[in-house]
């Protein structure tokens, strides 16, 4: 049973995170911050633009990491 759970978790970790953890953690952090900014009353257009910018930066950072290797 433990082996099955471990294999199941390993499969999903590999599926969603793989060798690029920045692409998993980054968008989650960006969404948490976007939620906080919406809660603070910032306009949707501004928060939406910031979310888009953050996701572009995360992607660019990840591409940069691989390209530098």
């Amino acid at each position, binding site marked *: 049973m433990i082996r099955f759970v471990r294999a199941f978790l390993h499969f999903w970790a590999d599926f969603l995170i793989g060798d690029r953890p920045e692409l998993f953690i980054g*968008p989650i952090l960006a969404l948490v911050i976007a939620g906080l900014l*919406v809660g603070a009353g910032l306009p*949707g257009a501004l928060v939406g633009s910031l979310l888009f910018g953050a996701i*572009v930066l995360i992607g660019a950072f990840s*591409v940069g990491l691989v390209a530098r290797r």
Partner: protein
Amino acid sequence: MHSVAVVTIVSSFLASAVEFVEAVTIVLAVGVTRQWRSTLIGVAAAVAALAVLVAVFGTALAVFVPISLLRLVVGGFLVIYGLQWLTKAVLRAAGAKAKHDEAAIYAAEVAELTAEPPVAASGMDWISFTVAFKGVLLEGLEVAFIVVTFGASANLLGPAVIGAALAGVLVVAIALVVHRPLARVPENAMKFAVGVMLTGFGTFWSGEGVGIDWPGEDLAIVILLAGYLGLALAGVWIVRAFARRPGRPSLVAGAGAARP
């Protein structure tokens, strides 16, 4: 037809076609090297398992989970998954990562299967069954993930399934005709397009999930898609220029494995 339904069908079709091409390579290698009967039983078992997964999880997500929560969680997953596809496609288009080579994967698979014990004269060949089942299930899970998440978020599970089914029929039909790995499919361009779509829709839905009131409503999706496409193309150009700097070894020479 509603434009979001069309985009859902196209996204599902392209993503599924890429994965079906990879699954067909494995199935062809097993069938040609070992035994077609056991291979096809393995494929049928995997397809049945995937159909159950899509029906159960797709319905459960659409029926039991509130749409705002669904869009937050599933939209977030789409951004994560879309970014993975898009960044890999950018790196491959720029030559910083080796492109997926179906012919090479097929040759490696055949070599591996040839080294296995010979096929029994009669009855089931469990090696054929297992390799085909595992290959189709693993590649199909990616399809199922996209179909269920994309379909459920847009409340368009039907069009998402139609897109995937069309891709499956087309890829299998071509494979039956040519009877060899589909090495000439523009896989990276398809992954590029799907990456843009998943990231764009994922951003829109997860943004709605955290409470963003997008200006222009659905028009914001078009702007997001255009923005990601333009910046991804710029990314290809920048990485390529980076590779050409004096004193920098060729990025292609240092490219990673052929598999994603």
